[in-house]
């Protein structure tokens, strides 16, 4: 197991290297020019050219990539072209809001979706099942920003229960922190709840038709025990897989949610950076997201062994 863990951790190095090269190349060939944006609309073409040279953007690809890769290997993600702040500092400022939003959304989604899926499977064909599946279709179909606007209108503007926008760091208190995150987490969680609930239902239906479940019922084991001890544990592997895959969905959704609720997170940072062509920031954030995703996949693989002892690495 430890050998497997070491191999998997080491395998992230080539993955990250490929991601780094890919992102750098993509940005190199992508249209757009940060010098033109810094210079502003009133600048002349000659001004833009001078700024571009000052930023070193006129140097060949290999030199720029080599220099950047060397700095990354030394733990330095560079400096923002626009703010002159270190990219690590900018990421550090944005990490907590995004992590908070994603963790809260995960807790909320798993806490709601798994029982919903189990309930739907146990009551297959009844109005409970249909209601849950209608909710799931709704969750899939309505875009995150629409849910966000509706929630903000009802719960912030009309009822004044929550603020419309912003983020309060956890250090300033759990209440204010949660207060700012409830609406965004609900908005972002909609799709995720739908996805997990549907997969849970489908997997549970398959497991519930197995012989050992029939045997358990015949032995007089209670419904709750059958559902949550026998069935759910055996249905867990596909559910955990979907939760892992869904993290990528969450990262994408966080970009929209952070914009709608003005949360100063990594999603907004990378979108702003893309619009401005702030290359060091884009590269830094994408590398971080890739690393997180690789780690999540590793975590999912390890969780398999906990749910299914037959799986060995």
């Amino acid at each position: 197991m430890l050998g497997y863990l070491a191999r998997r951790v080491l395998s992230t190095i080539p993955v990250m290297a490929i991601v780094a090269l890919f992102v750098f190349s993509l940005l190199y060939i992508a249209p757009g020019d940060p010098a033109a944006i810094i210079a502003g609309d009133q600048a002349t073409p000659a001004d833009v050219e001078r700024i571009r040279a000052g930023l070193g953007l006129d140097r060949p690809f290999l030199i720029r990539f080599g220099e950047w890769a060397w700095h990354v290997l030394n733990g330095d993600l560079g400096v923002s072209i626009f703010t002159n702040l270190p990219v690590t500092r900018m990421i550090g400022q944005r990490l907590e809001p995004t992590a908070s939003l994603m963790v809260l959304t995960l807790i909320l989604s798993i806490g709601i979706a798994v029982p919903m899926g189990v309930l739907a499977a146990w009551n297959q064909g009844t109005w409970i099942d249909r209601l849950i599946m209608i909710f799931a279709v709704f969750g899939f179909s309505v875009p995150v920003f629409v849910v966000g606007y509706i929630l903000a209108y009802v719960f912030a503007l009309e009822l004044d229960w929550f603020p419309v926008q912003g983020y309060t760091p956890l250090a300033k208190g759990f209440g204010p922190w949660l207060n700012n995150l409830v609406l965004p987490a609900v908005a972002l969680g909609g799709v995720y709840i739908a996805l997990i609930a549907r997969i849970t239902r489908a997997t549970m239906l398959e497991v519930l038709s197995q012989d050992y479940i029939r045997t358990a019922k015949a032995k007089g084991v209670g419904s709750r025990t059958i559902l949550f001890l026998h069935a759910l544990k055996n249905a867990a592997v596909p559910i955990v897989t979907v939760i892992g895959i869904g993290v990528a969905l969450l990262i994408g959704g966080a970009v929209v949610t952070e914009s709608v609720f003005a949360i100063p997170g990594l999603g907004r940072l990378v979108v702003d950076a893309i619009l401005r062509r702030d290359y060091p920031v884009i590269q830094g954030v994408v590398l971080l997201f890739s690393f997180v995703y690789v780690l999540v996949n590793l975590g999912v693989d390890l969780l398999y062994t906990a749910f299914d002892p037959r799986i060995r690495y």
Partner: protein
Amino acid sequence: MKRRDLLATGTAAAIGSLARPRLSLAQDTRVLRFVPQANLSSLDAIAGTQYVVRNASLLIWDTLFGVDSNLVPKLQMAEAYEATDGNKTWTIRLRPGLKFHDGEPVLSRDVVASLNRWMVRDTMGQRIKASLDAMEALDDRTVRIRLNKPFPKMLFALGKSNAPVAEIMPERIAKTDPFQLIKEYVGSGPMAFKKDEWVPGSLAVFEKFAGYEPRPEAADWLSGGKRMKFDRIEWLILPDDATKAAALQNGEIDWWENPVPDLVPLLKRNRNLNVDIADPLGNIGSFRINHLHPPFNDPRVRRAVMMALSQEDYMRAVVGNDDELWKAQPGFFTPGTAAYTEEGGEILKGPRRYDEAKKLLAEAGYKGETIVLCVATDVQITKAQGDVTADLLQRIGMKVDYQALDWGTVGARRAKKDPPSQGGWHIFHTWHAGADCINPAPYTAFDAGGDKAWFGWPKSDAIQAGIATWYDAPDAAAEKAAVTDLNRMAMEFVTYIPTGFFLGYQAWRKNVSGVVKAPFPVFWGVQKT
């Protein structure tokens, strides 16, 4: 304690702690929460000319002179000045006691270094530099600028609000290459920038500078006493317009610089909000043409488009049906200012002449070449103009390649001089702040200096000579005669096509007072109750 009691207590505590955090009233009235027009990505208004950067920089840095709402330059950091030798020598004396935010005194050597940096980037500054014999610090508070030809517009150049503004920074910062962004944000303006609290793309904080001594006169745009009624101004960068509107209605922000026209009716209905025109000098829509390549290197083709172009179509696409927000503008200079003239603008008036335009195109030898129209679809104003242009060109029989891009890409693409079929362009849209079009000096888009001109590279020696005449004009009458000639020449030459004049709104909560109309947000004099 029983399990159920513990749960009940925990739940009650959690719900209680969810109560929305509010600042105490006294504290709240000393903090202004402002939503600017765009993301504040940097703070160097010399290296960059973005309006949002200029607006923030005006809080941090002060100027020797400052224009008032009549665009007349008044003393600001300067205590006095003297123009001698027929406007060739300018001697400026600083007010006593001026300090930078780091506590250091403002000295004349700081002024010399700051103006040297500014002169490289500013069009008026470049004219001063071209005839500069010497700029020297005579003592700690006196600067002398010696030129080899008269420059009667010196005070306007040093006090104008157009970017780059001649802001005074410490010598060590001002020595930064004018094409690279500064790394320290130390000024002598009424507010100091809190770099430690800066979250780029989300929050920028300005704190009242205790060492600032406002002038005794009443504040008027960049002139007079800049008295701050706030201890702290927070610039909140909210990316979404609907969120901004909701936050303003909910009292989470105090002032929104540029609400989009679609949301204005909603804001006007809210009795807690004021909505009014933001900048009386407004904006001029721009149909920018590449003069280097066929068919637009032929003035007849440019005129053909102009005679078919309906400014009303453009303006309705930009601002909607609010007639208070736009007017036709058959001229290049800002309506309502001394420079405004319609001389030569008949081509933009009256019913549109599509048949005549088609005839002129044929006469000019247009053979159905594809016109590359680059449209920044992520900016509402450029998108709206681009859509109207695509329709207009098709109506007069031109073949259009509508390229939907983001503004970052258009910004880079427009610098390409390659033929349109090889990655270049024929047309892109933008707009110019009316404050930049009040005369030929800050009006980069009006220049027709060929390779040195703005994107599109129009070349007209007659227009360049006309601009020189305006610079040399000794009085207002001579200036007016010069701009009248310039307007006529530019209409005939079609440097670019103005698509109309439009205004924008600003919105603020009713407990905020002192908000004025200006080309930039004026924070001095604003207060909150």
